[in-house]
């Protein structure tokens, strides 16, 4: 797969169709992947990778290149195409400035799961078929891939690409997923239990803004939390409840626009399951306004900015969603 992608990227560069390629390159370790821009065939030959560690969603990295006169090639996995479609729908990115190649994804490995199992001093990790082989200073171990796959991949919602100029590999399908199971578990809790759960999780927040900055739905040029004039631009919590509010406000802001790509939870240095807040909104929107998946189609009307006579009445909130 990687070799096919490299070949195609070099062809498009050589023909002048595009002048830069957004992809991934390996950093210090096998699992250490950085989004990167390639401008020459040599750079692609040297550094371009696509493997089971290429988790970062490249959609948002197109931002800084959309005002260029020439086209940029970007490789998007199925779930990344939902983010891109949503950004195009919202006119946040200039579609004409991009050449999009849809690529297949077989599920990404979450190195944190391997580390949580006590593996340290990791010298190499290789993923072949169903096996993930970890070689460390303190011994080796082979995992079954499904046991160390990212949570968002275990609950994969789609192998289908919603936007592209060309595809590499076979087109996939929208998947049956159990991604709302955890939401249901949370809904089944008493309000006090749920409050405790979220206080426990969110109290670890360090307000680093990684979730916001990685989020393809967070596309404001200047965030309200960064604006000293806004009166709420705190870099840290002024009181112990504030970090909770930051996340709740952010979840509201991306409600109906979040495609559930899972970048927020992937980048969180404190391992807060932030995607669960977004999934709760998605699940509620599905329930109140009918099944809706953000980023499915360019130009779709989102339920929260649309009106139909079947819409739920606003007092549903006071009735606890009943």
């Amino acid at each position, binding site marked *: 797969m990687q070799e096919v992608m490299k070949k195609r990227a070099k062809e498009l560069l050589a023909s002048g169709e595009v002048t830069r390629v957004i992809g991934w390159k390996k950093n*210090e370790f096998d699992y250490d992947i950085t989004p990167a821009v390639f401008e020459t065939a040599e750079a692609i030959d040297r550094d371009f990778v696509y493997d089971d560690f290429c988790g970062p969603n490249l959609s948002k990295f197109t931002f800084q290149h959309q005002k260029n006169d020439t086209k940029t090639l970007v490789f998007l996995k199925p779930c990344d195409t939902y983010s891109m479609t949503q950004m195009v729908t919202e006119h946040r990115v200039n579609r004409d400035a991009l050449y999009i190649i849809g690529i297949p994804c077989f599920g990404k490995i979450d190195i944190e799961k391997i580390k949580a199992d006590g593996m340290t001093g990791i010298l190499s990790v290789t993923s072949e078929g169903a096996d993930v082989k970890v070689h460390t200073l303190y011994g080796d171990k082979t995992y079954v891939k499904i046991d160390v796959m990212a949570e968002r991949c275990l609950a994969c919602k789609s192998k289908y690409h919603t936007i592209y100029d060309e595809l590499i590999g076979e087109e996939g399908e929208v998947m049956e997923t159990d991604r709302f199971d955890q939401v249901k578990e949370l809904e089944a809790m008493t309000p006090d239990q749920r409050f405790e759960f979220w206080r426990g999780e969110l109290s*670890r927040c*360090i307000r680093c803004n990684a979730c916001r900055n990685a989020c393809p739905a967070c596309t404001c040029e200047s965030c309200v939390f960064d604006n000293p004039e806004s009166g709420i631009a705190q870099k840290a919590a002024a*009181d112990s409840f504030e970090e909770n509010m930051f996340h709740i406000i952010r979840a509201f802001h991306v409600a109906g626009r979040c495609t559930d790509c899972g970048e927020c939870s992937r980048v969180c240095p404190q391992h807060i399951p932030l995607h669960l807040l977004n999934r709760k909104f998605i699940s509620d929107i599905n329930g109140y306004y009918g099944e809706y998946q953000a980023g499915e189609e360019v130009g779709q009307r989102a339920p929260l900015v649309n009106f139909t006579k079947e819409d739920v009445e606003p007092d549903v909130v006071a009735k606890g969603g009943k």
Partner: protein
Amino acid sequence: MYRIPREKLDQLFALTAEKETLYIPTDATSGIAQFKKWNEGMKMSEKLKTSRSAKDFFFPQTEALVNFKISGKKIDIIDPREECEDFVIFGVRACDAKSFEILDSVFLVDPVDTYYKNRREHGTIVTLACSRPSESCFCTTFDIDPTEPAGDVSAWMTDDSVYFKANTEKGEKYIALVSSLLEETDGADVDAQKVATKEILGKLPFANLKKDAFGGGKTEQYFGSPKWAELSEACLGCGTCTFVCPTCQCYDIRDFDTGHGINRFRCWDSCMYSDFTKMAHGNPRLSQKERFRQRFMHKLVYYPENHDEVFACVGCGRCVEKCPISMNIVKVMKTLGEEEAK
């Protein structure tokens, strides 16, 4: 040197906590380790590092500085500070222990930061030697010996025992506090562990990372390097690296309007943020490239220049582990260092 059997560690914690507040690294539900106030039944984490560094104990993320209470035309100025109680932090690693010295050189020089000093004076640091360093570790690059950690008391943990050695007066006091559980010993096991750990250190991926290409007087050489653009290309501009870093010490002072007064507090700031150097006239660092460059130049050039060639990085590797796009000081040192070698 003193020793207790490992199974008595809980008793040691209980005895310590009777006299002083004790903090130990413990596993959170999500699998990360963090320092928490010890209570009965709490299990010490077996992880090498806590997710956040130990700097929080002396330089917390948010700290109340002064409160203003307004009633009519009267403004009361209230100092919210309380004299800190004595506390013990158990299980600080050598990298974090070194970071306290770096923070001291900023906060304890004239004008002394009395908020920081208050906490620093009341804290006793019990360090724990590393025996299973991880692939992200590179403290030896900055001349730190993880088998001989600094701190008030140094500790070593083997399969069956924990060994202690006091390094300071505060450390002697701590040893006296828990002496009923300790027995004197020669520490042969500790020496064996040091040898074994050093062998592992030599095999770490960053074992050959050198700081020689950096230090004071290198500003002109690196400031204008074209490499910064490439290195900072994918930077999200989040504050993860600065907030998990044990030596990053920048802060902002903000006012919180309570409706009937003002609570003035300080909070960690990050040079990665877009408003970091925003001033009345505008912002001298307009792009992420400039913000990114600032962070690494500060650690590798400016700080050593102003502090007798001590670097403002302790090689703890947290930024290596936590950066959402896997860009870090190691990559910066390798990329710029290569340039120097040419």
